[in-house]
């Protein structure tokens, strides 16, 4: 991993078209501005963690466990 130290207002350039700038620093928080082509994917890392966790939870189901679900989904009561 490349680790760089930046001061408020300084930037990092990635490839020819991505720029990350330190917009604000307050206490333990850093506000980052990201300039990138419209078709670049940008996510907070927590999103990836949440997806992995949800994928893991999904594996807990079994087809037998869904027999009751099938009954509920096709029953006429709301």
């Amino acid at each position: 991993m490349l680790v760089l130290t930046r001061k408020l207002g300084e930037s990092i350039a990635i490839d020819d078209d991505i720029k990350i700038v330190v917009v604000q620093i307050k206490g333990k928080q850093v506000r980052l501005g990201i300039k990138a082509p419209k078709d670049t994917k940008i996510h907070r890392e927590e999103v990836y963690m949440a997806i992995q966790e949800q994928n893991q939870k999904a594996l807990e189901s079994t087809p037998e466990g869904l027999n009751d679900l099938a009954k509920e989904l096709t029953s006429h009561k709301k």
Partner: protein
Amino acid sequence: MSRANLYARRNRVKIKTSRFGELEVNQDDIIKFKDGILGFEQYKNFIVIDPSDSTLILWMQSLDNSQIAFPVIEPQIFKVDYCPVLMPNDMNALALENPADAKVYTILTIPSDFSQMSANLKAPIIVNSKKNNAKQVVLQDNKLVVKFEMYKDLKRAIANFSTSDDFKRTHIAPVKRFNPESESQFEEMEEIVINTSKENELD
């Protein structure tokens, strides 16, 4: 044995699954995930198993690990207007030239309280049905969530499905190509920071 039979035999392969026992599948139906599924990057080969039960839930079964099978469903069943926007990177990774060739599945989490059942609309599985390439794509749209509760929507859809003649599925495209002419998608992210994470506010 006829030539057709011989070909059919060569094309089929036996797989072991923990949930469905041993199955014989068509090699042409094997779906390849070049990057695996998030958190399970080592599993690259999957097949969709359709138990044909009334829940409309399918299973994305790993061919590399018999224990790994994700319950999935086509999201347009319970959310008719769901149409993932794919970035050029996503389309290239899937070698997807025509959005109409895509097939979309969403991974379901089904807790013991069924009413809390949820679908991951933020990161659907997109399959290029012409090449059988697939990827779990993290969509940029910040209105989409990882836990979309859809029990009531699914129940309603199943009730309508059994009483209607044609299925609404074909009315809208499975995915959409990102259009750079439209507004930047990043503005939404900033809006959400201000509205929801008050404790993260710097001022």
